[in-house]
């Protein structure tokens, strides 16, 4: 193990250790918040694989998040599944839908890719509204406590919920860290930097982008399924454009193309909105201002600035 690898493992392992220990000291309110942030950060990690590492800006990730959430929720509600197979159904749904969308959307690049993903996600959102009889549309439906017993563990209990969220986050973070240091992830970064050159070197860029989109969509769907399961609610608003913009915002803020960036961005943005919603109901104003300010002044994000100034080897 080189020194570089040791430092990287220490940093990311250290974050996980701090998060694990945090639950014993945090007051109840922040304890609940942090569980939510870890699930949402997993969503952002999924988004970051496509946007930060592969350089494909998707405006339709809410489709994958909602696919996981609804496959899980509808499976429990109407299929009578228990949480474990329902969660699996959510993950599989995410993999299938992201694979299908990738086959279509990867025929385009740049701006067209953004609009195509936006349009298909919008169609998905409208489809959820259209089948309002089952999905309950914007109102959504509650997943009862009795339906959220995983192997006899009650997932609606705060401590168990924190553990489950931590587990999901730890898996997503490790997967993302391992992937970007593996040859597959290296090729993705190369595609981001110069796709033509990668193609000329003999790599099949299409297959790599397809793989990145499926991994990204699957992690997003897992986060969506976990969100529904842990917080007991599935609603159409999670499929709206806003939920495609959020991961973009978190990743941009934390630092696109860094492993820790999604978590940092989600943490900051969550508390920014949490604090501002005490002052005004128009909390999306903050999101808008942060988006504009980031594109203007810090396109690298927080972790990106650290990488630029302090530690160039930050993965």
């Amino acid at each position: 193990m080189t020194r570089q690898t040791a430092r990287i493992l220490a940093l990311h392992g250290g974050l996980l250790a701090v998060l694990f220990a945090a639950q014993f000291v945090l007051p109840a309110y922040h304890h609940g918040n942090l569980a939510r942030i870890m699930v949402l950060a997993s969503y952002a990690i999924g988004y970051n694989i496509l946007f930060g590492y592969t350089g494909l800006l998707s405006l339709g990730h809410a489709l994958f998040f909602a696919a996981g959430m609804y496959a899980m929720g509808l499976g429990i509600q109407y299929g009578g599944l228990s949480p474990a197979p329902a969660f699996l159904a959510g993950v599989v749904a995410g993999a299938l839908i992201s694979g299908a969308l990738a086959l279509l959307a990867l025929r385009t690049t740049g701006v067209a890719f953004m609009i195509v993903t936006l349009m298909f996600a919008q169609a998905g959102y409208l489809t959820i509204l259209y089948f309002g009889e089952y999905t309950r549309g914007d109102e959504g439906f509650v997943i009862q406590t009795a339906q959220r017993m995983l192997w006899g563990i009650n997932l609606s209990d705060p401590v168990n919920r924190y553990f489950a969220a931590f587990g999901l986050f730890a898996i997503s973070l490790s997967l993302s860290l391992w992937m970007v240091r593996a040859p597959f992830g290296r090729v993705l970064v190369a595609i981001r930097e110069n796709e033509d050159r990668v193609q000329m070197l003999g790599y099949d860029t299409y297959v790599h982008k397809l793989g990145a989109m499926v991994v990204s969509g699957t992690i997003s769907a897992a986060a969506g399924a976990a969100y529904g399961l842990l917080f007991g609610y599935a609603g159409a608003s999670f499929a709206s454009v806003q939920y495609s913009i959020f991961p973009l915002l978190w990743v941009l803020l934390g630092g696109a193309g860094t492993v820790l960036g999604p978590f940092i961005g989600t943490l900051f943005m969550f508390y920014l909105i949490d604090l501002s919603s005490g002052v005004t109901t128009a909390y999306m104003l903050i999101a808008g201002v942060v988006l504009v300010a980031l594109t203007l002044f810090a396109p690298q994000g927080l972790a990106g600035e650290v990488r630029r100034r302090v530690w160039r080897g930050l993965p």
Partner: protein
Amino acid sequence: MELGPYILLASLEGAVTAAVLALTAVGLSLVFGVMRVVNIAHGEFFMLGAVIAWWVANSIGGPPAMGFAAALVIAPLVVGTIAAAADMTILKRLEYDPERTIVATIGLLYILQQLTLMTYGPDARPVEAPFNQRLALPWIGRTETGWEMYYPWGLSTTTYKLAVIGAAAAVLGGVWAMMARTRIGLLMRATQADRDMALAFGIPVEKVYALVFGIGAGLAALAAVLIVPIQQAHYLMGADPLLLSFIVVIIGGLGSLPGTVVAAILIGLSDGIISVFFSPTLAKILATLLVGLVLVFRPNGLFGTRAP
């Protein structure tokens, strides 16, 4: 009502939609064509136009025609100025990088929308039309006594709706004349054709960009002022015009003005007729899927010739 008069009514309503849509979409298309910027905040400029129209009409008072006429001038000017300012402060500094400008205009969308929510509030408010005469329309059909012209119940339009169609046509003619016949139009076309060459020939490209962004937003605001007596002003009203304008611009060929107008008429009319037969949600699902698929398989748009 029989089917025939029903379809006539639907296409009349569709023509009003098409007129307003054509104005909004031409604004979006102009910005994309000249600046290569996808303006996600375009729908919010439309919304701002409607809200400012309400505000102007309300603070002027007097007869509805006076307030409306004032709104027709003031709203596009104010919105155009805001847009030009946004261009100079934000988009210019991003050097019009396509992806970063999309992210920035998404931010702009939320800023404009939420500021409107904070000042104007969540209510939908109407603006009174300057004139609104109901016109019954005749229909020729077979009655007991043979073919006859009669006035079916419910088949009618208003003078105001006809005026909207006329006004939109006049403005579109004006935009065409500006692009084809004036010096500033020439500068815009030169910038569109080759930015660097235009710059080399001493064309103030940055000023042209600010102007185009302002005109694009002003056209959306104008369309909103025209529609606001029919449809009320609300802070979330920008989403549908944005989606429809996107559909129109993509189907009409990215950046092509004549294609945009043709597509707007097509979409506006078929929207009126389709919504007679399908539920609005299903119609929207089909429309969004259509845009996505057109972009995947015909990236230059259905009528487009140039690469986007």
